[in-house]
C-alpha cells in the first residue's frame, strides 16, 4: 500500500504535539506542577491515538522515521523556554540532516509505489 499524504501529515502533527508535551512536561517537573504534568500526559495519549490512526494510511517503514521530526521541533522550541538549550550550528546540521533523511525515505516510498503490482 502506498503511503497516503494525510497519514504523513497526521504523523507530523503527532511529532508537533509530542514535542509540545515534552516541553510542557519538562516545565512542570521543576518547580513541580501537577497540572502541567497531567496536561503533558493527556497530550501524549491523544498523540498515540492520532499516530495509530495515521498508521492505517501507510507503511510503517515510511511513517515511523517521520517521528524523528520531533528532534527538529524540540531543538527549535526548547530554547524559548529553557535558555540553556541554545540552538547551535551542530544542531542546525542535525536538523537539516533529519529533514533530508526523511525526504529520501519519502522518495524511496514513491519508488516502491511506482513498481507495485496492484
Amino acid at each position, binding site marked *: 500500500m502506498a503511503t497516503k499524504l494525510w497519514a504523513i501529515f497526521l504523523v507530523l502533527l503527532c511529532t508537533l504535539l509530542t514535542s509540545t508535551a515534552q516541553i510542557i512536561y519538562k516545565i512542570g517537573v521543576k518547580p513541580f506542577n501537577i497540572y502541567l504534568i497531567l496536561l503533558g500526559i493527556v497530550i501524549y495519549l491523544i498523540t498515540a491515538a492520532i499516530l495509530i490512526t495515521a498508521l*492505517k494510511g501507510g507503511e510503517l*517503514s515510511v511513517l515511523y522515521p517521520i517521528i524523528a521530526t520531533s528532534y527538529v521541533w524540540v531543538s527549535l522550541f526548547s530554547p524559548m523556554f529553557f535558555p540553556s538549550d541554545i540552538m547551535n550550528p*551542530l544542531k542546525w546540521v542535525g536538523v537539516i*540532516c533529519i529533514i533530508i533523511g526523511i525526504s529520501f525515505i519519502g522518495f524511496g516510498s514513491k519508488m516502491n509505489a511506482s513498481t507495485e503490482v496492484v
Partner: protein
Amino acid sequence: MATELWAIGLVVLGSFLGSLGPIYLKKSSKDFCLNPKKLIKNRNLIIGLIFYGIGTALFIPALRGGELSVLYPLVATTYVWVSLWSVKFLNERMNKYKWLGILIIIIGVTFIGIGSM
C-alpha cells in the same frame, strides 16, 4: 561524564525491544477505534503499548547516565530495527533510498546529540 557501559546496554536493549512496539501498533491500527470496549480487546494494541513502554522505561535512566552524542544515535537505531521488522512482519519493502534516508537521519540525530552537550 563518560558514557557508562550500562547506559549503552540499556539503550541498545531499549531500541531493540522498543522497536517491536510500532510493529504491533501498526497491526493494531486496522481494528483501532475509540470505543473503549474494543480498545481493550485489541491484543496488538496492548502488546504494542507494552513493548513501547519497556523501550521508554529503559531509555529514561540510560539517557541520564551518558553523553547524548553517544546515546542519541544508539536510540536512533530503533529506526533500523523498525525497518527490518516491517519487511519481515508487515510485508513492506525497503530500498536503497529508504535505507539512505535512515542513515542520514541517524547522522542528523548524532549531530543533535553532540550539539546538545
